[in-house]
């Protein structure tokens, strides 16, 4: 490197606070040998250090615009001091009125997930109306809650929440299966009540399977952390870590004994003491090929079963295909199965299952009997 190039590298490093002790010494020697550089050096150092007076008034305005934009985009930010509250635009208010009107008229509006109720202005009026979204067997739907959280509802499920959801609390009840992607909000935890458990979350992604006809309630956690309380044991809190699945035995007695013949009529619910509630924590079932989680694949229209008994699978197929399946052969009912159903029809699915498990079936309308 040339003599003067070296000087400029060292000098700019000194100004930028990048020079090592050795480099500073080297620079000092260079300057000492060239006292005529002193004037330029001094000026450049002054110029470098000079900071024009800072004027933050533009930044203040920019911050206000940013906060306003965040609100408009629906990013939860919490309450702002009154003097910072941006003026709600007329256009937006109009939009809200029309949305509210539409919501009253069209009951199924929520299925399209476009309702946004976060700008409600009727502060004093306590509204306790309930929104209810339900899916028929054989169909699924995606719901967007007013706080931006997304819920996919599996077939034959029901999600309810109060009209004032998100105002003070975020509470929903679930019967059936839902895949939740909950928007973060530390001040307002998101609470899901099912028949047997309560789940409290701050913001995370997980699947809850709580069909009333199933013998277990399953909670599968993909990201974040959630706190589960079992209704019959309100003092025990279970914290789930990612990739864990909590299985709670529902208080159903007849299931274990009748096993292969599980129609709704056979299930009796009884108030059983706390001890009978069985809890286990398992690992989620990852698909080794693409590391997707089997428990959540139904949202991609896949019914994945891993090491499940035919009788358990039959219950899922009933919901999936909106059929009624009766297994009359106990050996077949206890047969363990693996597989994925995606685009298959019920007949194709049964034919495929016949290849690994010998059984006969009769299908009449929506009813399937397996021998």
């Amino acid at each position, binding site marked *: 490197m040339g*003599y*003067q*190039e070296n*000087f*400029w*590298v060292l*000098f*700019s*490093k000194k*100004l*930028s606070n*990048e020079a090592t002790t050795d480099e500073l010494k080297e620079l000092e020697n260079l300057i000492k040998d*060239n006292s*005529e*550089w002193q*004037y*330029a050096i001094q*000026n*450049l150092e*002054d*110029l*470098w250090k*000079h*900071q*024009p007076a800072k004027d*933050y008034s*533009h*930044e*203040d305005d*920019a*911050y206000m*615009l*940013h906060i306003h*934009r*965040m609100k408009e*985009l629906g*990013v939860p*930010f*919490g309450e*702002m001091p009154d003097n910072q509250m941006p003026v709600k635009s007329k256009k937006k208010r109009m939009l809200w009125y029309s949305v509210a009107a539409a919501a009253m008229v069209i009951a199924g509006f929520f299925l399209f997930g476009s309702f946004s109720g976060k700008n409600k202005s009727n502060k004093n009026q306590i509204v306790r109306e309930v929104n209810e979204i339900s899916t028929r067997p054989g169909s699924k739907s995606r719901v967007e809650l007013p706080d931006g959280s997304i819920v996919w509802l599996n077939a034959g499920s029901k999600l309810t929440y109060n009209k004032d959801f998100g105002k003070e609390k975020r509470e929903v009840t679930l019967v059936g299966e839902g895949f939740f992607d909950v928007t*973060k909000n*530390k*001040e307002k935890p998101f609470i899901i009540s099912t028949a047997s458990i309560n789940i409290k979350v701050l913001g995370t992604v997980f699947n809850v399977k709580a069909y009333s006809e199933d013998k277990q309630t399953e909670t599968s956690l993909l990201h974040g952390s959630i706190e589960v309380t079992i209704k019959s044991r309100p003092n025990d809190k279970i914290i789930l870590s990612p990739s864990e699945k909590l299985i709670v035995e529902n208080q159903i007695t007849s299931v274990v004994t009748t096993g292969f013949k599980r129609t709704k009529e056979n299930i009796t619910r009884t108030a059983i003491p706390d001890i009978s509630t069985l809890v286990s924590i398992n690992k989620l079932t990852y698909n080794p090929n693409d590391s997707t989680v089997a428990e959540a694949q139904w949202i991609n229209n896949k019914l994945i079963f891993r090491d499940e008994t035919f009788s358990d699978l039959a219950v899922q197929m009933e919901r999936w295909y909106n059929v009624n399946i009766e297994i009359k052969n106990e050996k077949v009912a206890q047969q363990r199965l693996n597989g994925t159903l995606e685009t298959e029809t019920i007949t194709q699915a049964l034919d495929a299952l016949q290849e690994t498990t010998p059984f006969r079936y009769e299908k009449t309308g929506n009813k399937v009997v397996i021998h």
Partner: protein
Amino acid sequence: MNENDEIKRLLSTIAFQNDQAAYKELFILLHKRLKQFGYAILKSNEEAEELVSDIFIKIWEKKEKLVSIESPLLYFYTTAKNLAFNRLQKQKRLKSLNPEEWLMQVNSIPLNPEELMMTAEMLNKIKRAVNELPPRCKLIFKLVKEDGLKYREVAELLQLSVKTVEAQMAIALRRLGRCMHIELKTAANLGFSLKK
């Protein structure tokens, strides 16, 4: 306090206490330079403003994860670059992805020559010299001098070697230095070329 430490302190206050005042302080501290950086790439004031807003939405949404960042200033500039690139790609303005195409403004040459011991004529020369720096050189000079990035941070951001950043900084300072030599005739006439 070192600026990176200051930003780290603000980020952890935001993450642990959900503190909106710290969030605002951080926004005000970084808004102008991030907007200028965004403008350099996007060449639109409106888009640069939105870009800064997008960065801070990200900051708020991911605040829990931001406590462990080693070089927060670099994180902000990298995020700005990535978000700006996303915009360019959507608009199919692929030419602007090249840092040679970025138009960076330099602010801190004082308007009033009396604040420094220099003549107005000399200051004008310096301003002109800064404006006439090659785009990449000017960008690096601004990031180091005004925005407070370290050489290695600039190198990482622009995917250059640290040696290149060193060399570009030397070029910038040398050009500014030339403006002063004219004032000092003997030094200018002798130049550096006579040495060794």
